[in-house]
């Protein structure tokens, strides 16, 4: 039986409590050797791509820089250009904000990485828009909630206009005749939309993929619609099979309206795992990791993010506070700043009610509860058990693959690559080797001229 193929990607450990920094094997989050290690592991395992998240201001809570989690990252595009030097096939996906950049610069960087990697560049378009982050930038940052997907859409369309401004046959470089360019208008563009009014000639000739692969991360209705219209893959946070299926159905059904088929948009949830030789061992390991991820202090900080109040006086081993969350409108500053997740709890009063019931039923302390409601591993089991669970997700249309988020830098993917991937390959649900050279090839995306290339 030929199984449905999955796609796999590696998320370089990020700057939240998923990443455990206190273990002996926890290495540097900033030295190039760490990026090279994880990229090589992912390439050895024939992964589709490595993925880097972005945050352009250090997070704060209660008015001070957040100090409990790993912090300190490189510039994404730059580090991936370097990773291209130590890999041959692995896709390179950089999260780059559409708010704190201009299309011309982003297009140049992505097209340059695509050239320098032989066609492996991808861009995760994020729409983060807070004033807080804007304080680091010329343009400031504030976009009304309704405007950010408008800007994102126009930003993305403009980047595509720029990279499409070279068809690919303009450079002749004929030494004998002296003709370098066939076309004096190569790279010419003219964009006049409400967010951007730009014109001239784009300076980077057409790259191997033509266009970078586009990922989107964002979950609102507008975010889903944006992905359906324009993205090649979605990065999601839907953990359970049922939630995944609901999301999958919802997003895939939006594609037809844009003349796109279901296989043109891959759904790739963030996925954590705990491996063991036996199920019991894996579960024990999973519990231990979660305990490390949710210290008493971290539990209080989580609670504060929902309560939107300073709760540092509470005992994490004690009960939830009596006081209710402080509800403010979406654009007001919050106790926690600089987190994409700050807006995840759209109804804090409802969340508080649900958590109180859960804590009462299980007699849970703040830390117990926070350990339960956050950062549970997606898959816990033996290598075979995890392989089977992953296949089930893919066969039952809860996802098209996974973006694995290891909890240790940089070796957190090694076990998965060595023990789970060979099983997937043997069972025929994951490629035994790369069959193409570009990321578009790995993802099985339709040739570009099937889309809107001019």
């Amino acid at each position: 039986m030929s199984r449905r193929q999955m796609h796999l990607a590696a998320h370089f450990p990020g700057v939240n409590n998923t990443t455990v920094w206190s273990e002996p094997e926890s290495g540097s989050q900033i030295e190039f050797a760490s990026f090279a290690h994880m990229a090589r592991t992912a390439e050895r395992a024939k992964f589709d791509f490595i993925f880097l998240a972005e945050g352009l201001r250090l997070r704060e809570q209660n008015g001070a820089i957040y100090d409990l989690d790993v912090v300190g990252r490189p510039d994404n595009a730059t580090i991936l250009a370097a990773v291209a030097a130590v890999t041959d096939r692995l896709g390179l996906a950089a999260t780059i904000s559409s708010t704190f950049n201009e299309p011309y610069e982003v297009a140049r960087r992505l097209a340059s990485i695509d050239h320098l990697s032989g066609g492996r560049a991808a861009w995760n378009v994020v729409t983060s828009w807070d004033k807080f982050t804007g304080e680091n930038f010329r343009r400031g940052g504030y976009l009304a909630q309704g405007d950010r997907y408008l800007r994102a859409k126009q930003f993305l369309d403009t980047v595509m206009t720029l990279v499409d401004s070279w068809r690919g046959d303009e450079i002749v470089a004929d030494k004998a005749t002296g003709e370098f360019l066939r076309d004096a208008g190569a790279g010419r563009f003219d964009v006049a939309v409400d967010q951007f009014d730009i014109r001239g000639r784009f300076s980077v000739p057409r790259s191997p993929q033509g266009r970078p692969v586009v990922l989107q991360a964002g979950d609102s209705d507008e975010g889903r619609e944006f992905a359906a219209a324009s993205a090649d893959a979605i990065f999601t946070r839907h953990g359970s099979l049922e939630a995944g299926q609901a999301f999958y159905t919802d997003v895939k059904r939006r594609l037809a309206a844009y003349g796109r088929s279901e296989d043109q948009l891959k759904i790739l949830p963030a996925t954590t795992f705990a491996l063991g030789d036996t199920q019991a061992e894996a579960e024990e390991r999973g519990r231990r990791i979660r305990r490390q991820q949710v210290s008493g202090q971290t539990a209080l900080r989580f609670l504060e993010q929902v309560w939107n109040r300073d709760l540092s006086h509470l005992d994490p081993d004690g009960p939830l506070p009596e006081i209710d969350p402080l509800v403010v409108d979406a654009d007001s500053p919050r106790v926690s700043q600089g987190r994409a997740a700050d807006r995840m709890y759209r109804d804090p009063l409802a969340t508080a009610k649900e958590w109180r019931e859960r804590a009462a039923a299980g007699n849970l302390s703040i830390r117990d509860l926070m350990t339960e409601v956050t950062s549970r591993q997606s898959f816990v089991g033996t290598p075979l058990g995890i392989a089977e669970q992953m296949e089930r997700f893919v066969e039952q249309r809860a996802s098209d693959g996974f973006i694995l988020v290891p909890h240790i830098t940089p070796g957190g993917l090694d076990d998965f690559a060595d023990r789970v991937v060979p099983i997937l390959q043997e069972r025929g649900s994951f490629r035994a080797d790369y069959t193409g050279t570009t990321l578009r090839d790995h993802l099985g995306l339709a040739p570009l001229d099937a889309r809107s290339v001019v």
Partner: protein
Amino acid sequence: MSDTPLHLGVSLDGAGRHPAAWREPGARPDELFTAGYWADLVAEAEHGLLDLVTIDDSLGLQSADPFAADDRVDQVRGRLDASMLAARIAPLTAHIGILPTVVVTHTEPFHVSTTIATIDYVSSGRAGVQVRVAARPDDAALLGRRTFPADRDALLRELFDEAADAVEVIRRLWDSWEDDAIVRDGATGRFVDRERLHYIDFEGPRFSVRGPSITPRPPQGQPVVAALAHRAEPFALVGTSCDIGFVTPRDAADARGIVAAIREAQAGAGREAETVHVWADLTVVLDDDAAAARDRLARLDATDPCTDDARVVAGTPAELADLLVELGEAGLTGFRLRPAVLPDDLRHITRGLVPELQRRGLFRTAYEATTLRGHLGLPRPADRYATADTAGSHS
């Protein structure tokens, strides 16, 4: 001067500095957009023990007209983002300094700072940046966020003031994490000591930046900042903000005047105690035979005349070495050579000029430092935000 070793760098751009370079037999014009082409060039420069390479860049497409876009089809057009290129090449080399050119007009100082810091990480301490302004209205139109005043002198003053502000922000951000800010303290549960992270709170007419950086302090502390300078405003930028100025003197007397202008700006900024290099840019056409070099330049110019801002020198490596010694006596501390044709003139530099200078005791015979600051004789600077309290508390 003759016992003070010279510093040497090369400027890499397309098929070479000369507009007709791409038509030479050894040129590789169809490989300009591949990593392999640049890897070979930088490896050759490193073979010659050079201090650094710079990689040219601009926002818009190249133009033969310095003030406007053109639509010529007989010269190299198209280039990769120099910072991406620098990062791609850095892991393939071990010693040489790498400076992408970065436009600081229109762009975000925050991104420039983290980009160069990242190249410093990727190269283990060999990054720098050549900052430049973009004064052309057609460049401004690519970003569409600004219109320029019509008066060119006023514009240049404005752009260089802004460039100085950008460098200030870039540098403050590099220092915004003290070296030992990451504590990984299991006992208190803190990964980072927030007392050693600093807001930079820069406020200027064009931008305000709060900080701190998202990137920890790079290996060199302060990567090297350079600028090309032809007139008073950029001389001042070099004196107040840079580690290296690339200048374009016609002769030794001119060089003396330029060096004096930069030293004055340096003193005015209270930086007398710091090393600020002033290097002359020279475009070079080299051959073991002097007549052959001059013939080659004549042939190149006949194809497409070179209108260069730097002095163009055609001759033997020994003749060039004589000129470097002569100019060096005017107070220049090094030279950035622009090979007219790549890779040909680069090879004449690494395999002809460098051995010639070594014979005269004027150039290193092996790399003696591991960082670019080290090659340039610049100490690793203390962090401007470190207090007596935090600095050294790790030791």
